[in-house]
């Protein structure tokens, strides 16, 4: 289980901003989301979308536990 957060247009596309999902890795989480919502999974893999695990940006794979917070961040607009 991981706590998943979506920001900006990703949250609008999905229709939710936070959700607890059962996944032990980022790859498993992406696969689960692809099952539930292919359009969202495609957007999450799109250009400029960054991933933060427990508020630190990660590239590639990461292990997830029940308390891990995973955030998908579309390109940042500045303030």
């Amino acid at each position, binding site marked *: 289980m991981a706590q998943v957060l979506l*920001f900006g247009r990703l949250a609008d596309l999905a229709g939710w901003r936070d959700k607890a999902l059962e996944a032990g890795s980022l790859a498993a989480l992406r696969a689960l989301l692809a099952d539930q919502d292919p359009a969202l999974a495609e957007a999450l893999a799109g250009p400029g979308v960054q991933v*933060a695990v427990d508020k630190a940006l990660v590239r590639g794979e990461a292990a997830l536990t029940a308390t891990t917070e995973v955030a998908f*961040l579309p*390109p*940042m*607009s*500045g*303030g």
Partner: protein
Amino acid sequence: MITLSPQPFEPGALLTAFCEGRDETGAVASFTGLARAEQGRAAALELEAYPGFTDAAIRDFAEAAKARFALHDYRIVHRTGRIAPGEAIVFVATAAGHRREAFEACDFLMDWLKSRAPFWKKEHGPDGARWIEPTDRDRTDASRWDQE
């Protein structure tokens, strides 16, 4: 100090408080950004932040600015949530020994905040809402500091 504020704030009060109790600071520069109405095209602006991530990123950048410009102190307040035209979006104040460092650090911080800070911005207008990406002007303003 850095604050993300879902509530409107009063820039004058922030500046007064920031200037208090300084014996060695010769210069305080400040900038206040307001939400534009864009001739009616922007009924409101919505700014989304990621608490704990957005403020940490701003703090890292502001600490680097503090070292680069030998600042004594800085104060950054950024609105989040729905912001009406005319309301303050951002306040930056910098304190330094002399004015050049204070002005430049304030300009430097604003260029980064406007183009690279982790916010997601939505404009609500008469034709609905749209997510905004940084403008070319914002990117050019920010990149002019990279070559120095």
